[in-house]
């Protein structure tokens, strides 16, 4: 009993120490270094744009779990649901030559890509789904990125207690062939729990990068000054911006 309490006390001490160190600048620097190192390792080992694995139809999970926000309890969104998203628009703005406002009909009329990929949540679970939608690169090319653009920011209709969900990625991921704006899951319109009518698929990163309920995409030069400044709702709450680990 005595030995056990000594071990528990030691473990507690280590834990308390780590909780303190975790908030200091030096450790923050190490974390950032490790994030960059992981990203560089992934890009070096796989080449600049390795493709995420694509699966066969038989591998698809029987159900695709919804996570985070699984509905939006607001009259405007519920009206869109009732109308089958006929008037939903996606704005393309920021550092672009030609700002766009695309309806779902226009988005469905673009050349489409269908991919069966695995979704890995930061919590640890995985599900496999068949996604369909236009490549983000087509839409960005249509709008024409200005030279200063470095990141693409994704704006969403959902929020957590009034804090809007948003995400961002670099141009490497934005122009990756598997980065699509999905409006179908398993050949049917995207269910509300999975982000209807439009969600991002950014296949080489964890689930929180795959922004749902998309309302706008914005080309920017820096992530500073946008919401918490760290490039995403969860990033502003301590999660890594590079979600490939």
């Amino acid at each position: 009993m005595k030995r056990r309490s000594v071990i528990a006390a030691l473990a507690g001490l280590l834990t308390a120490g780590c909780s303190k160190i975790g908030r200091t600048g030096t450790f923050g620097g190490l974390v950032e270094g490790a994030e960059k190192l992981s990203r560089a390792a992934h890009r070096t080992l796989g080449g600049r744009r390795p493709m995420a694995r694509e699966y066969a139809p038989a591998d698809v999970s029987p159900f695709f779990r919804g996570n985070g926000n699984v509905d939006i309890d607001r009259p405007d969104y519920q009206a869109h649901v009732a109308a089958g998203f006929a008037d939903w628009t996606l704005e393309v703005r920021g550092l672009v030559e030609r700002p766009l406002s695309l309806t779902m009909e226009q988005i469905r009329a673009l050349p489409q890509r269908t991919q069966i990929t695995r979704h890995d949540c930061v919590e640890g679970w995985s599900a496999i789904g068949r996604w369909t939608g236009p490549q983000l690169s087509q839409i960005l090319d249509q709008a024409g990125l200005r030279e200063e653009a470095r990141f693409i920011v994704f704006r969403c209709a959902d929020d957590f207690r009034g804090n809007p969900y948003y995400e961002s990625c670099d141009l490497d991921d934005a122009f990756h062939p598997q980065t699509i704006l999905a409006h179908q899951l398993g050949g049917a319109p995207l269910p509300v729990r999975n982000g209807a009518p439009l969600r991002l698929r950014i296949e080489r990163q964890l689930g929180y990068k795959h922004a749902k309920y998309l309302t706008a995409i914005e080309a920017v030069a820096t992530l500073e000054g946008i919401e918490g400044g760290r490039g995403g709702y969860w990033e502003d709450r301590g999660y890594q911006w590079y979600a490939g680990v």
Partner: protein
Amino acid sequence: MKHALGTRLWHWINALSLIVLFMSGLNISNAHPRLYWGDWGFAPEQAWLHVWRFPGWATIPGYYSLAAARDWHVVFAWVFAVSLLLFMLAALFNGHLGRDIATRPRDWRWDAIREDVRAHLRFEFEPKQGKYNFLQKASYGLVLFVLLPLMIFTGMAMSPGMDAAWPFLSEMFGGRQSARSIHFLAAWALCGFTLVHVLLVLLTHPARLLREMITGGKADEAT
């Protein structure tokens, strides 16, 4: 035979890394305490194991935070993997692996193994010759060449960025969720090894062995 400086440095860096990785790993486990086989899994009925929730005193940080635990885990994963690689190279070139860890065919004879097990049961741990006895060599070999690399490769297999670059990793383990399950099992196997390792040090010559792993010890003491 003294412990080489590289061995001693690695031993303590590795011990610290494993403690931080294990405790931050328990915090990460709390985020989704279910394990699956295959490539996917998310619901209770698909799980082969419902993991218990680990209390704050056993986790890093000492409260539930997936974001902070992942920061600790990824930083020390790099420390752990790079230091293991350097130690392996050093041990290969300074002869530690070949001389002290590698077993000889005669070590694997049934009566030799039985003799070693009996000696252990009598709490006699001093090897008759060389630095380590058979059970020590076998368990160090298992940890160095199976469990520690397994932790690294199953960890890498879980990363979606790494999976795009090296899809054969998760395929080798039977899918991402299988890799996650193996990661969890191997972590507990390492925890078990560490407890037995510490227990055996305490049962033999704790002060001397600890001093030797810090200062290297006297060259003639082992004879």
